[in-house]
C-alpha cells in the first residue's frame, strides 16, 4: 500500500542549512591541506630565487582566501550539495530540451579510474592507446547514428559545436571565393539562441524564420523568400524544441542545396529519433550532438558537457585538428593533424574526454536495439505526459493541435495566468516544494508563459504520474489559494528572491563577495547611502 507522501511529495522539505557564505566561515590559522616541505638540498640550491627577481614580480600580500580546516571545507560543500536537486534525486522531466536522463554510475567508475583521469594530453601516444581507441570507436558509432562521414570530438558543448560548424562554413565559403556573395545564414526562431549568436560572431548576417502559427513548423513560404544565392548555410533543429517534427525538412535542405549552400543539423533533440531518422537521410551536410544530453554524460551543474560535430566527406578537410585516426599498418591509434584546410583549433587539446568515454560505455551497454528503444520510450513517455497535462485546467500546447509530438512539448500556462493570476514563474517556485524542476523556454518567449517538459526514457510510469500530480496540485492551488503559489517556495532551501533589482541594477548588484563588502554593511544595508 502506497503512502500518501509517496504520491505527491506534499511533506517534502529540501535540506535547509542556512549555510554561510564561505568567507564567513574563515578562521585565521586554520589549514585545509599541507603542501610538501621543500627539501634542504632544494632550498640550498634554489632558495634565493626570490631575491633575484625584479620588483613587482612577487606578490606582496597573501590572497584573501578563506582559512578553514579540512573537515570544515568538506562539511560546507556537502551542505551545499544537499541544497542542490540533481537529476538523480528527482523526477527530472521538467528541464525540457536538456534531456535529463540517467547517467549510469558504472560509467563514472571508468571515468574516475586513474588510467583515464591522470593522462596528460601531451603524453607519448603509445601510452594513450586505450583512450584513443575509445575516442576512435565512439566516432564510428556517431557515424552510424548520423550517417555522416567524419566527426570531431573537440568542442566543449553544444554552443561550441555550433562555433566549430560555423567556422567550417566560413572556411568553406572563403575557400570557394564566395565570401562576398554568401554572407547569410538562415535559422529558425525556435533554434537555440547560440545558432544566431555564433553566426554573427563569424561575420554572417542572420535570417530567422518564424513558425507557422497553426502547424508550428518553420514557415516554408517565408523560408523560400529568405533563401538566395547569398545563403551560405541553414542551421536548423528537427524536431524543434516545441517537440514538432518538420516532415518537410527535405524541402528545406533541397532548396538550400539548389542555391549552393550547406545544411547543418542541430541534433540537441536527438533523443526521440535515435535509429529512427538520421542527418544523412534528411540530406544534411553537417550535424552535431550534445553528449551531455542524448548520450548520458551528466550535466555537472552547467558543464562540462561535450559537443561532437559530424560532416559529409566533402567537408572533412575543414574539421578542427586533431582528428583521431587509426594506422592500419602499425595497428595504432593516433592524433591526426593532417587536415589540409583545417579551421585550426576550437578549443584546447582534444575534447571532453570523460564525456566521450561515458558515451562510449552507454552506447556499448545498449546497442542498436537499445538506442531504438530509448527513442521509442522517450516518445511514448512524452505523449503520455502531454495527454495528461492537456486534461488539466489552465494548460495549453500551442501549435499542431491534436497532433502527437516527438520527445518533448512546449506548453503554455497563459490560461492559468489569466484565470488565476499565477503564471509560469509562480509555478516554477512552487514546484520546488514538491522536489521538482520546471523550465520555461529559450529566449525569445514566442509561446507566452511557456514551460517545456521532456520525460526522456529514464523515468517510470509511476514517476511520471508523481510529477503530474505535483502539477495538478499546484494548479488546484492556483485556482483556490493563489497566494500560496505566489509566495512560494515554502519548503525549499531559501525563500523567494523577490527584489530582482539586486540582480539588475548596476548600483545594487554584487557579483563577488568583495563587491558585496564594498557596497553593503550587514544584510544588504547600503554603505554611504541613506
Amino acid at each position: 500500500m502506497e503512502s500518501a507522501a509517496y504520491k505527491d511529495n506534499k511533506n517534502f522539505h529540501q535540506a535547509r542549512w542556512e549555510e554561510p557564505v564561505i568567507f564567513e566561515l574563515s578562521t585565521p590559522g586554520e589549514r585545509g591541506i599541507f603542501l610538501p616541505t621543500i627539501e634542504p638540498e632544494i632550498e640550498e640550491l634554489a632558495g634565493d630565487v626570490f631575491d633575484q627577481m625584479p620588483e613587482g614580480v612577487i606578490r606582496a600580500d597573501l590572497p584573501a582566501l578563506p582559512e578553514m580546516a579540512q573537515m570544515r571545507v568538506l562539511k560546507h560543500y556537502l551542505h551545499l550539495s544537499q541544497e542542490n536537486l540533481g537529476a538523480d534525486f528527482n523526477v527530472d522531466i521538467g528541464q525540457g530540451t536538456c534531456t535529463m536522463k540517467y547517467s549510469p554510475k558504472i560509467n563514472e567508475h571508468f571515468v574516475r579510474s586513474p588510467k583515464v583521469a591522470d593522462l596528460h594530453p601531451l603524453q607519448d601516444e603509445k601510452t594513450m592507446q586505450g583512450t584513443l581507441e575509445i575516442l576512435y570507436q565512439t566516432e564510428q558509432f556517431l557515424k552510424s547514428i548520423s550517417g555522416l562521414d567524419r566527426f570531431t570530438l573537440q568542442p566543449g558543448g553544444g554552443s561550441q559545436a555550433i562555433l566549430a560548424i560555423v567556422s567550417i562554413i566560413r572556411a568553406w565559403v572563403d575557400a570557394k571565393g564566395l565570401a562576398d556573395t554568401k554572407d547569410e545564414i538562415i535559422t529558425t526562431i525556435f533554434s537555440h539562441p547560440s545558432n544566431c549568436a555564433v553566426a554573427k560572431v563569424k561575420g554572417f548576417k542572420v535570417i530567422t524564420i518564424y513558425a507557422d502559427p497553426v502547424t508550428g513548423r518553420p514557415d516554408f513560404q517565408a523560408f523560400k523568400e529568405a533563401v538566395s544565392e547569398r545563403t551560405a548555410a541553414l542551421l536548423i533543429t528537427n524536431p524543434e524544441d516545441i517537440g514538432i517534427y518538420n516532415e518537410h525538412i527535405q524541402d528545406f535542405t533541397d532548396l538550400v542545396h539548389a542555391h549552393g549552400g550547406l545544411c547543418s543539423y542541430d541534433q540537441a533533440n536527438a533523443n526521440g529519433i535515435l535509429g529512427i531518422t538520421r542527418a544523412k537521410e534528411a540530406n544534411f551536410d553537417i550535424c552535431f550532438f550534445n553528449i551531455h544530453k542524448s548520450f548520458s554524460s551528466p550535466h555537472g551543474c552547467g558543464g562540462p558537457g561535450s559537443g561532437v560535430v559530424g560532416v559529409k566527406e566533402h567537408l572533412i578537410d575543414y574539421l578542427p585538428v586533431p582528428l583521431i585516426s587509426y594506422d592500419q599498418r602499425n595497428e595504432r591509434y593516433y592524433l591526426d593533424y593532417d587536415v589540409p584546410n583545417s579551421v585550426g583549433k576550437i578549443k584546447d587539446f582534444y575534447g571532453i574526454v570523460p564525456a566521450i568515454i561515458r558515451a562510449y560505455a552507454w552506447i556499448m551497454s545498449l546497442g542498436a536495439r537499445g538506442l531504438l528503444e530509448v527513442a521509442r520510450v522517450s516518445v511514448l513517455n512524452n505523449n503520455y505526459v502531454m495527454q495528461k497535462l492537456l486534461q488539466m485546467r489552465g494548460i495549453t500546447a500551442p501549435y499542431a493541435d491534436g497532433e502527437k509530438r516527438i520527445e518533448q512539448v512546449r506548453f503554455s500556462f497563459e490560461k492559468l495566468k489569466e484565470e488565476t493570476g499565477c503564471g509560469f514563474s509562480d509555478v516554477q517556485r512552487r514546484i520546488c516544494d514538491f522536489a521538482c524542476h520546471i523550465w520555461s523556454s529559450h529566449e525569445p518567449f514566442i509561446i507566452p508563459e511557456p514551460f517545456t517538459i521532456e520525460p526522456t526514457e529514464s523515468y517510470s510510469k509511476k514517476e511520471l504520474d508523481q510529477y503530474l500530480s505535483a502539477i495538478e496540485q499546484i494548479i488546484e492551488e492556483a485556482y483556490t489559494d493563489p497566494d500560496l503559489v505566489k509566495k512560494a517556495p515554502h519548503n525549499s532551501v531559501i525563500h523567494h528572491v523577490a527584489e530582482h533589482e539586486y540582480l539588475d541594477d548596476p548600483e545594487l548588484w554584487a557579483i563577488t563577495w568583495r563587491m558585496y563588502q564594498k557596497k553593503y554593511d550587514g544584510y544588504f544595508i547600503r554603505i554611504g547611502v541613506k
Partner: protein
Amino acid sequence: MFKLGLIVNPIAGMGGSVGLKGTDGTETLQMALQRGAVPSSPKRAAFVLEKLSSISDKFQLITCPGIMGEDIAKKCDIACEVLKMDVTDNTKPDHTRQAAGMLLQENVNLLLFVGGDGTARDLAAVVGEKHLCLGVPAGVKIHSSVFALSPSYAAEITGGLIRGRKARSRLAEVMDIDEDAFRAGEVKASLFGYLLVPGVERGLQVLKAGSPASESVRQQAIASYFVEEMNNDYLYLVGPGTTTRELLRKIGCEGTLLGVDALKGDQLIGEDLNENECLALIESFSGSGIRIVVTPIGGQGFIFGRGNQQLSPRVISKVGRDGIMILSTPGKLQALQGRPFRLDTGDPILDIKLTGFYRVYTGYRESTYYRVEN
C-alpha cells in the same frame, strides 16, 4: 517620499457594457447613461489603490477633486492631496488635461491614470514623452500600449516603483480610433503620440512588447544594421515611430517622431513632410534609388495606414513594392503571435498588390521574412 499622481476618467468604459463603443462626445455619453451604464473606472481605480494601501506610508498621493480621484481615495482610506481645480459631475477631456498639467508641476514620480485611449491621448497632448506615466485599463478602446495588461498588473508595477524598484522606461504608442468608423464596425486606429511608461519585470510580462531595456537597445542595433547597409546615393523616406527615429539618430539627425522625414546620405533633406512634399521630392530626385522605411504601428502591426498616411498610395506606387523596407523589433513580431503585418494604404487595390513577404530588419545583422496582408 514617492509622489504618486492619479487621474481617474470616470466615464471611460461605460459604453462597452451597454453596447456602445467608447464614450467620446457628450451625445454618446448621454446615450450610455440612458441605457443604464455604470461607471467602471472608479471601481478599477479603487482596486489599484486598495492593493497599494499596505504601503500607504511609502507614498504621497496627489489627485483630482471629487469623482476624478479624491472620492475614491477616501473610500480606500488613503490620505491624499487634492489639486486645486474645478470638477463637476460632467467631466470633460479638458479636466484630464488640466490635471495632467498640474501634476507635471508637482513633479510626481509616476502619473497613474485610469481610462481608455481617449484619456491616454489627453495625457500625451500635455505630458508628452518626458514624464513617467502608466495607464490602468478601464475603457473599451484599449489600443495604446501605455496600459498595463490589467488593474492588478498596474498595482504590481506601481507598488514596485513605490518600493524603490528602478524603473526602466520606454516610449509606448498612444493610439486613437476614428470614432464614427468604429461605431460603424471598422477599427481604424491611428498613431497619436507617445508616452513614457515603466517597463517589464523579469518573468512578468506586464506590457505587451518586450522588456524596455532590450527594446531600445534592439532599436539601436537595427539602426546600426541599417546604417551598415545604407546606400548614400538613395533617398530614404523615413516614416514615424521610435524604431525609425533611432535610425535617424544613429546618423546624427533628429527627425520627427510622428512625421515622415527624408534622408540622403547623412543629411535630412526634409522633415515632417506631407504627401505632396513627398511626391515633389521623389519627382526631383536624381539619385539611383528611393526607399520607404516603415515600422509597424499599433498593436495590430500596421505598416501603412495607422499614423503614416503621408506615405499615400501615390507615394508608395512611385517608390514601388521593392522599395519598401520594414524595421521591427522582435518584441513587436512576437506580440503578433504569428499574425501577419497589415496594411491599409487607403487604396484597396494597391493593398492587394502589396501583400506578400517582406524582409524585416530585426537587429544587428539580423532579419526575417514576414508576411504583410491587407
